[in-house]
Each structure stands twice: as C-alpha cells, then as structure tokens.
C-alpha cells in the first residue's frame, strides 16, 4: 500500500500545454504515472504527449475517468483551477503553483473540506508513492521503495533527506510535500493519520520549518494517536523574526512559530529531531534497526 496516490490513480494535468505543465507531465508519464489527459481552456480537442486535452475539467473527468489532478496553472488562475477540479468531482488535487493570493486559498480550502476532497499544497512539490505513482515535480531518481513515509513543508529538503536515506539503503513508501504557504490543503496531522493507517509505512520523517503551529499540532497528535515512530527536522533556527524566508508561510510572527518552539514540542512527545539532514537519516537507520 501507500497513501494518497497509488498505481490505480488516474490523473489529469491542468495547464498541460504550458511549459511547466508539459515538462513535468512528460516526467510523470516516464515514471509510470497514469496521466490520462490534460486541461487547458481553449485548447480542447488537441493532443499533448499522446493524451487528450480538454477545455474543462468536467469534460476531462467524463472523457478519461480521472480521479486526480495536478495543477500547474499560474498563480492568478490557480484558485479557479482548484475550484473547477473540486466541482468536477476530482478526489485528489495536487497544486504545485506558488504565489496564489491567500484569500483564494482560504475560499478553496473551505470548498475542498466541505466536499471531502484531498488538496495537497499549494506551493508544494507534489506526492510520490515510490514505484507506483508520482504527481508533481520531485526528481524520481533519488527515491527508492521502502517503508519510510516522509511529510514535509519544503521541497529541496525533502529531496535531501530522501537522498540520504536512499544512500543508507532505506527506501520510502510515500513522500508528501504539503507546501510552504500559510493556508495549505492538508496538514501534518492529516498526513500522519494516513501514514499511521498505512501497512507499508513503518516510520515517518516529518520535515517542518518556522511559521505557524502545524508542527506543534503534529506533536499533540503523535503523543495521542501515533504508534509508529516519527523522526523530525525543523529548518530556520537562525531565521530572524518578522521576515518571510522564501515561503509565504515561513515567518515568525508575534513570537510564534519559532524553530525552538517546534523542536521542543516534538522532543517533549519523544520525537527525535535531527540537527542536520544527515543526522535525520542516521536516526531513522538506528530506529529501524531497533
């Protein structure tokens, strides 16, 4: 098993005719992901990478039986694209786009939750169920199949940790980039809950960063509901308060959201937090042996 997506996932790419959409669609297909179509308003009826392009998500779902969508449309139109996917009945929506206005994200979040769908992101690298399906922009070659789940707010750090694990001979089940924005569709807690239920996953790596209180919430969940071991990493010990560190969500505001607070919350519930990505991989190795 795996979480969120697997070999039965049939996905469309919204924005498939754009340069980013096309580039990554090709990589996803090469990985073996079932990309069954694409959507670009005005380009319906054409074909890209051997899959049909539709004008609307509704037509794409009807025409292909898709149950997932990856969104590559520009920020100004991405909120609209997510709403369209929800309305068309898509179950799993992965929004890669960075820079979506936060008011759009708030509305989209409410809609997604009201309809009981899964939104991963926005501003995320996507989801990778190793050897099964890949929706997003992760570099497939650094992953190997195994039983460590990864959930992260950062793309590159996820790659670094996965790379370190793979080098130590430790494979991954599903890798979830939940995104760097303030308002994101799926929280750490929700992904931890899925990993807890997943047969394939034996241990979870949680990669957090400054801003918000999602890591603190995750710590509470781990204490109460998690039987599987969790290993942490938190970026931003040296980040100054009040400054946005690249991600819209990576900011210490009013003394809240510091790395110290997150590390402390995790340590208090028995989660070991690595000081470097290398240390994270070493802790995982030790825990899996024991």
């Amino acid at each position, binding site marked *: 098993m795996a979480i969120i997506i697997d070999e039965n996932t049939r996905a469309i790419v919204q924005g498939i005719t754009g340069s980013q959409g096309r580039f990554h669609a090709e990589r996803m297909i090469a990985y073996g992901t079932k990309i069954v179509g694409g959507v670009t308003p005005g380009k319906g009826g054409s074909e890209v990478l051997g899959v049909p392009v539709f004008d609307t998500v509704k037509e794409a779902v009807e025409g292909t039986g898709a149950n997932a969508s990856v969104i590559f449309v520009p*920020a*100004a139109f991405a909120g609209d694209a997510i709403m369209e996917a929800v309305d068309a009945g898509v179950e799993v929506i992965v929004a890669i786009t960075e*820079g*979506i*206005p*936060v*008011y759009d994200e*708030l*509305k989209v*979040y*409410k809609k997604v939750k009201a309809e009981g769908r899964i939104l991963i992101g926005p501003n995320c*690298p996507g989801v990778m169920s190793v050897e099964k399906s890949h929706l997003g*922009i*992760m*570099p497939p*070659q*650094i992953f190997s199949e195994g039983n460590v789940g990864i959930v*992260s*707010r*950062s*793309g*590159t*750090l*996820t*790659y*670094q940790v996965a*790379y370190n694990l793979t080098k130590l001979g430790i494979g991954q089940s599903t890798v979830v980039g939940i995104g*760097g924005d*303030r*308002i994101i569709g799926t929280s750490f807690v929700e992904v931890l809950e899925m990993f807890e239920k997943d047969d394939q996953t034996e241990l979870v790596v949680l*990669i957090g*960063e*400054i*801003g*918000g*209180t*999602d890591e603190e*919430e995750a710590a509470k969940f781990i204490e109460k509901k998690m039987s599987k071991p969790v290993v942490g*990493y938190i*970026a*931003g*010990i*040296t*980040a*100054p308060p009040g*400054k*946005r*560190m*690249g*991600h*819209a*969500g*990576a900011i210490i505001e*009013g*003394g809240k959201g510091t*790395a110290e607070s997150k590390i402390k919350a995790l340590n208090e519930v028995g989660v070991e937090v690595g*000081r*470097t*990505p*290398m240390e994270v991989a070493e802790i995982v190795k030790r825990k899996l042996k024991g």
Partner: protein
Amino acid sequence: MRMHEYQAKQVFRQHGIPTARGELALNPEQVRKIAEKLGGKVVLKSQVLVGGRGKAGGIKLANSADEAYELAKQMFGMVIKGHRVEKLYVEEQLEIDREMYVGFTIDRASKGFALIVSSVGGMDIEEIAEKHPDRIARVTVDPTYGLWDYQIREVLYKSNMPREYHKEVTRIIKPLYGILVHNEAELTEINPLVVTRDGRIIAADARLNIDDNALYRHPELKELKDYTEVDQTERIAEEKGLNFVKLDGNIGVIANGAGMSMATMDLIYLEGGKPANFLDVGGGASSEVVKEAVGIILMDESVKVIFMNIFGGITRCDEVAKGLITAFSEMEIPVPVVLRLAGTNEEEGRKLIGEFIKEKGIGSIHLVETMEEGAKKAVELAKGV
C-alpha cells in the same frame, strides 16, 4: 506589503473610521505650516515601517508650531531600527482618557480571520495577552460566511470593555472588517483605539498589511509601496526574482529552495559561523540566475566567504556550475566559494567546475561532497583558519 500609518489612515477615513486631523510633511517647514493649521498643539509621528517607533523616540509632542518646527529638524534624518525618517505625519493632539485595541488577522490554524479586541491598548498585542489576559478576547470569522454581530458582541463582552463604548466600537469593527476583505489584507489593526476626554472614539494609529500575492488585483495599493523602506540589496534581489533576506553574519548563502536555504543557514550556525543572508535561487535556476545571485551576495561587504549549496531536483547541477563559471569570468570574486552540488546532473556539474579550476588555476573554489562538510569548510574559511 505593510502600509504607512498615513496611508492606512486615509483608507480608514474613506470607510468611515474616525481618525485625528493630520497631514504628511516632508520637511520641517511643512511641519510648521501644518502645525499652525491644526492650532499648534500637535504630535509628530515618524513614518517608518517598524514597530516600537514611539519607544525609539520616533513620536514627539509639540505645543506650538515653532516647537514642532524645531523638533522636526531633529527628527528628519534620524534612524529608527535601521529605517531613516523621511516623512513625518503631523496630527492634532488628542486628550486621551483610555486606550483600547481592535484588529483582524488571518488565522492559519483555523483557516479564517481572527477578530481580536482588548479593552486595553497602546502596547503590542502579545504584551496585552500576557499582562491582561482577562481584558483580551478573540473569535474566528469564517471567510465563507463573513462577520456577524453576535461575534462582535462576544468579544466585546469577553474583553470586559465598558458597555458605554460597545455601540461606537462596533461601528468601527464593521468597516475595519470591510477594509480587511476589500483590500485582501493580512492584517488590519487599530492600536491604540482611544477614548478622548470628550468621549469620542478615534483610531490613533492604523496598520494595514496587504497580501503581496494579491497586489496585482489592487493596483491602487501597489502604487503606495514605499521602496525607500526596503533594504537596497533586497530590492535589487526582488527585481531579479530572487528571495533574499539580509542577515548580520559574514558567510554568504546561496541555495535552492526555501527550506534548503534555511537549513544551510542553520548548519553554518551549528558549525559556529554566522550567515550573512538567506538567498533562495528557486527551482530550476538558470546559469544567469546563479550569476546574479553571486553578484547580490557580493554587494554585502561583510561577506568573507560564499557557501553555495545546491541539491538538484528540477535544478540541474551543470547549469549551476555554468552560472558560477560565468560569474568568475565576468566579475571579480574576492572571496572564496564553497560549492556543494548534489542531485540532478551532479557528475556533469562537478566535472565542469573541476575542469574550470584546473584550466584557470583558481584556488578559491572549494568543491565539497556534502552540505554538512560544506558548512564546516565555509566557517573555517570565514574565520581565516
């Protein structure tokens, strides 16, 4: 984008929130004229985009136009937490009986807006929460349904605000919510909201922060952005599409991805060094972008060494290597560069750099295997070991 008080107050007034009479001045002469118009008793408020300007001497009272002129001469040009005072907002003095607080922010945890009200004000909201927990109250507003009267009543009661003010404060909270939503603000805040001796309730200060990602939908607000308030290097980086934050150390950081950039800073710190900046070249950076990033780092004269830490996912290591080679060919790079390349096209990238070092006899590029090793090396070089 954080707006100046004088700009925010203009928006507040347009929505019917009462403010004191006042005007903006750009020199002491203008201050004198405005003070005369306002009857002599005025308050001079530095328009700088930092908190705590009052404590830092950025707000002064004058009892006559002449005194205002003299004070203004001292205030223009003074530096408050790194921000130079170039504008003064001159307002009539209010006789204040009581200070309170109202504000809205985006609440990440509840995915809505938090309405916060306190029957005390004038200090920052964290301090109010700590010192007067019984005088502060908050409620979450669901963006789907908007703000309802019962929610306002709830926070007014819970904040123990005297009932005589409820009606008037409600008349301020409602348009404040309108301002929040209409402008796609991340924060609207009145601190303090004052009760004057003659019983009026007035916004004595005004804060309005707009979501940068939504500015394209608000061109009238975008025009108000005060670039003199942005660090010069940060401004240039923004124009080039790079995420850059200036810090106070001496090791320049270039990495790809926000998390990786922060992790690189943290590693430097763990090794006993101090990062000079945060710089994220983003995903799929071209050689041109890498070259620009090196240029931006070198604008900071305190930088003693550059640590370029790349994990190639979408970013290709050979492209990064080409960027660094171009940088070395086109500009003088007076400091050593520690380079770590891993991931996509790692071999090609390392080979290009290796050949370049050999061919040009450049001794200042240190190619390392891991980011941990790179941080260590960068710290050693910065310390001159």
